[in-house]
């Protein structure tokens, strides 16, 4: 990739970003511009730094070097246009709140400091739950939901934020078929509304089906761009190395023109 011109309209521009944990670099020199209005998969092996990339963009982990802009400005000033869906396992689900309470958390910025979650906001949270098919479980305590249902509650919270850029960390991990379908539908409706989504995705089989673009990551950026140009056996081999027995199978599928 040649050094890109970072555009103001670009939902997410990452310039020369390096992130390290305890002095050991996790991702190096990432240079990437996300195209607007696309569904983008972030794909790579375990330990490739996929979650780290997302967290560094959101200032959740410190960057050693580099610069990130969201719609042309630093992230700190753009929080309200960005929505983050963390990994489901990152929170303790045995927490004394209901599904509706969690969905309403997506509205807290809008409600502001010291404000109360009034009926109007509860209704807004409820309609977010409806979009993910969880309205019947609104008053359930969150530990009583299945893994897929919990993931949908997280998605409802993100929808309530009504952002322009969505960053999701492994939303498809360990979910049931209904939830997987719901997430795909939601992603497509976001794209139809002109929003952009970057999604950490672990399943190579479904990646070409669900996403328009792909970022192949293995500590460094291997390749990025439209799925049909970039998601090739050659690039996948460069990303996964010898680590993946599934690789040849996927490669064959791609070579056969089957996506």
């Amino acid at each position, binding site marked *: 990739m040649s050094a890109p011109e970072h555009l103001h309209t670009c939902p997410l521009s990452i310039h020369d970003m390096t992130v390290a944990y305890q002095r050991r670099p996790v991702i190096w020199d990432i240079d990437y511009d996300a195209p607007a209005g696309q569904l983008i998969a972030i794909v790579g092996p375990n330990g490739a730094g996929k979650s780290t990339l997302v967290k560094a963009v*959101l200032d959740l982990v410190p960057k050693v070097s580099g610069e990130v802009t969201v719609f042309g400005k630093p992230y700190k000033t753009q929080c309200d246009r960005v929505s983050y869906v*963390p990994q489901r396992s990152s*929170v303790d689900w045995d927490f*004394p709140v*209901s599904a509706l309470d969690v969905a309403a*958390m997506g509205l*807290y*910025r809008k409600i502001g400091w010291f404000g*109360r979650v009034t009926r109007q906001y509860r209704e807004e949270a409820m309609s977010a739950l409806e979009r993910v098919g969880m309205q019947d479980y609104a008053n359930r305590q969150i530990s009583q939901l299945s893994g897929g249902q919990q993931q949908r509650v997280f998605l409802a919270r993100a929808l309530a*934020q009504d952002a322009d850029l969505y960053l999701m960390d492994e939303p498809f991990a360990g979910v049931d078929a209904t939830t997987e379908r719901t997430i795909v539908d939601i992603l497509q409706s976001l794209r139809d509304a002109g929003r952009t989504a970057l999604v950490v995705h672990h399943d190579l089989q479904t990646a070409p089906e669900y996403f328009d673009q792909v970022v192949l990551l293995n500590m460094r950026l291997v390749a990025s761009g439209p799925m049909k140009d970039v998601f090739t056996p050659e690039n996948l081999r460069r990303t996964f190395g010898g680590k993946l027995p599934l690789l040849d199978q996927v490669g064959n599928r791609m070579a056969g023109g089957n996506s």
Partner: protein
Amino acid sequence: MSRDLSRWTVLLGMGVLGLFFLTSAAHADTSESSSNTFTRVLFLQDYTTRNVLIGTTLLGMSGGVVGVFMLLRKRSLIADVVGHSALPGIVLAFLLTQVFQPGSGRNVPLLMLGAALAGLLGALFVVLIEGNSRIKADAAMAIVLSTFYGIGSALLTVTQRMPEQAVAGLKNYLNGQPAAMDRSDVYLIAVSSAILFGLTLLLFKELTLLCFDSEFAAADGWPVFRLDILLTGLVVGITILGMQSVGLLLVVAVLVIPAASARFWTNRIRLMTFLSAALGGLAAAVGTALSATFPHIAAGAVIVLAGTALFLVSLIFGRERGILWSWLEARRLQAKVGQHDLLRAAYESIEAQKNATESRTVNESDLLNTIVSIKELTDARSWSEARVRQLLQRAVQHQLLEPAGYGWHLTPEGADRARRAVRNHRLWELYLITFADVAPSHVDRAADRIEHILEADVIRKLEARLAAQQTAAMWQSPHD
């Protein structure tokens, strides 16, 4: 494993409480005035006691509210760090007043300021050690706690050589001495409690978000680090307010025990906060009243133990997660599972006797008239004969089976339930085989457990999905 642990905790707690009440009772026998004192305390006749009671109750309530977030942030022990770290602050503040104004005695607000600064410093060190080294939170807390407390103890021995009367009072801050509180102390506690209480309620939404998902909160633009500092500040506030009544060493209990107790009763954070405040206030009031009645027992300890008593009650009887309810729930499920399994075994035994096939399923008269022996039931699964007899006895009580000849036969009610149990079971088995990659030979045991939990609408969905491909075969066990 954890079940056993909780049982031992209960036993241990009961033992401690028993001992506590025994000594109190023994004490009550020897002290003639204690019952007199108790009624005076109870009816708030005594002016000093009333003051103290109001002060500690308010402390207990605000401790309960702040403690909810401490507990949910999983930082309960930071309160212990703050409590222990406060000691050197108190002693230093005292020494400084002696240097600049010799003989002026104890200046309580100044001592509190010293305690607050040292407590905050301790909490700050924990964060610094945790963030800048590979040492984990528990070790960081242990290091800071013992270091600060060590410094405090060393300084305290220095003050012991000082002639002033006031020195004697310093040690009271370790274990608490509510009787020493005067009216201005109670005013201070009342005002500060109201502030802590109000701040927590005002920031209820923000603190909830911080405790549930701090990464999301940070990404959403909330100042997570400052909110954490504020929460620590609230804990420091409770600590210095509690140092006179329960003492620095036990103040952690005022924060953690009511919140942990409240969690057993509810799954809703608002109700939990309310209950925690109520339990904290109640424990402090009861503890203060008891300690006024039995002045020979350390007052702070009595307040904490009163909280422990409420905790034990919650642990056992708590509606949402108390041991008793979970145990009853488990028993009910066990009985239900046992009954279904028995009926299914009876049904399958009848099928075997009648040589039922795909085209010819067992009919109503087969079900009602075929006699099933105990041997057939025992052979059907890995049951002991005693277990089968126990299940049979209960089934007869519920009029699902009737003794007949050398065995039992199903009643109309029993036949109906047996048919339903078998149907659900086979639907589920078929579902697992069709939709999940489960080896058919492994299906049975998993299905045994899940069919009792399936909801009616799930069963309807299964039927609809499977009816198309499996019609008559639904009645046949798929792995025969």
